């Protein structure tokens, strides 16, 4: 067998191995036939932290804001304005917000949609020993401020090992980087 053939054979094997590795996409829903005007500006609420890691919501919300701004899909409302609005209206946001609040927010801040979410799993932050596989699981939804209807929602769970191409190459070792990847994959499914 010539050297070129050997190389091609090796490439095919590597490709098939990489194809075997997990390539899951987020469970996503996008509202079709939505007659409202296009979403231009969104407000992102701090994600509800369902884990024992106190910093998880700051990391995930920060990653979500950063990824949305980078991808330039929507304009993002400054989080300080959202907080200021919630404080002035004496609203506490845990897992969701009521329609009246969303509508008022739309008028006051000039946003077209709000994004709320929840962190289900966040593994790899406190475990200091080596070899811990980071896990991130996030669910999020975008609501229309005029009607309160869900425009988009997604649920996604990935582990650091899901990105292994071959051997240990591609493996994500830090939970922060994994969060960025998970968030990015979710945002890609947005309308």
């Amino acid at each position, binding site marked *: 067998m010539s050297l070129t053939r050997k190389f091609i054979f090796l490439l095919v094997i590597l490709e098939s191995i990489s194809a075997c590795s997990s390539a899951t996409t987020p469970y996503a829903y996008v509202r079709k036939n939505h007659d409202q005007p296009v979403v231009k500006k969104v407000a992102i609420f701090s994600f509800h932290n369902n884990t024992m890691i106190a910093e998880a919501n700051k990391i995930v919300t920060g990653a979500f804001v950063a990824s949305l701004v*980078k991808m330039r899909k929507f304009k993002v409302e*400054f989080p300080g304005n959202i*907080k200021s609005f919630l404080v002035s209206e004496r609203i506490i946001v845990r897992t969701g917000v009521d329609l009246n609040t969303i509508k008022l927010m739309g008028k006051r801040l000039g946003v077209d949609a709000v994004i709320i979410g929840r962190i289900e799993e966040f593994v790899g932050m406190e475990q200091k020993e080596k070899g811990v596989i980071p896990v991130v699981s996030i669910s999020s939804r975008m609501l229309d401020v005029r009607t309160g209807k869900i425009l988009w929602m997604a649920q996604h769970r990935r582990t650091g090992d899901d990105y292994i191409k071959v051997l240990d190459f591609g493996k994500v070792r830090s939970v922060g980087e994994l969060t*960025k990847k998970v968030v990015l994959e979710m945002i890609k499914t947005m309308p």
Partner: protein
Amino acid sequence: MKKHLFIVATILVFSLHVLSGRIFGADNVVKIKRIALMPFGTFTAEDISIDMTRFISDCLIKNEFEVISQDILENFLAKRRIRGTEFLNKPAIREMGAALKANVLLLGSVDLLEDCKNPQVAMNAQMINCFDSSVVWANSISRTGDDFATFLGIGRITSLKKLIEITVEKLLNDLPSSVNVIVDMGSSSITPIEISHAGFSPDVLKGGETTRISIEVKEITKKLRDIRAFVLDSEIDLKTKDGRWYTGTISAPAIDGVYSLKIYVSDRWNRLFSVNSAANLTVQNSSPEITLLFQKRLISPNNDGINDYIQFFPELLKAITLESWEVEITDKDGKVVRSENGFGMLPANFFWQGENNQYKPVKDGTYFCRLFVQDKAGNRTSTAKEKIVVDKTMPESTVVLAEENEESLTLLLKTKDISKIADWKVIVYDRTGAEAGKFEGKGNVPATIVCPVKKKLKKDLSTEENQSPEEEDALTYSLEVRDIAGNKLRIERQPLKCPEPKATEPEKKKDEWVEDF
């Protein structure tokens, strides 16, 4: 002539361009020069102190940005009582931009800083346009020392300081060099004067009641000339003492609804800007509508695991904001035995375990439950009185032998209970101890039961010898009666007794005349 025409046309086009910019708020790209950097905090890892703000400031200076001194920034924040990033909002950022001549504000947080064998750093940063408080850039990053390890662990970073330097550089490597600003403030969202606070007190009330309004104004780029506030088409008479806080009173509209406050401000050039929905006023004249839902209305709080508590669910039929609620349970005389109250939202459900306010069990009987609510406007309403029965006493039941003949036994049964009887079971045993008859049913216990008797069996002599004459003659029964509250009476093998003869009153002696004095 042609030359003159050309000059006039050029001037006209230029004027139109400027005018259109003034009317429509044209965008202009401004190079970012000065950056206000909000403190990222100082952290201690092991025995070293790490000033993250300095790391970021150094990186920004390296990228040829001018960073406003922390002293100046802190002075500005202290004057406005802004204690941290979370207190920054649009008026504060715009004011900061104008006061410190900053193009953008950089803020963020350090989410993780771990100094161990494998150091870890996680942080995020956002760049905010000081002109309109829009997010122009954002990034988040997370790095560990292991991320830099290559073949056989070569390149792994073990120093936290070095990892921070690399991470900060990576975090800020794609900062924008310019931002968009609106040349003129014709746009409604960007005004030279910011309304940093507007609110009614109270903000929910009945029609016709008076409410106070307060508005805080911040002059960002231009001086305020006039301010006017409206609810519907009624103007609120505003007064100020310091030129910053404006107050006034208004009588609420009569009809139910949510009314927005509209504010018009004009600057010294007499240009008018409006702020919609600065605050909302809610008029509520009708009482809230509520109901109480019950799964059951019977309770037997005797810790037997059956019906030990009652659960009822309050339901708000009309979606309004409640101020307070009170639930009370009264006895048949109207005396409150148990009550509970709270503010704001109604609880999802209530439990009552048959205790009074002193946490002692209440007596058996009928009780009434009622829920009172008051909305923020002061409208009060209550549910109808809902009946609850407390029954923790087991049924009382007596069984007597009314008649006995060779063919049958007739039993008389008497049962007493507050609640209805759910089911019952009677087993009659003959004199040999064998089961003579078994009767059971649902609902009320019958007043009489006729139990057929089998022909006398030949008694086993050996057993006869051993039995005492009393045992030999006894007819026995077992009884089980359960009421719908779950209280169960159980009698095992008790001798059947004959009805007690009616006690006859002794004849009263007639008063006799005694002649013997």
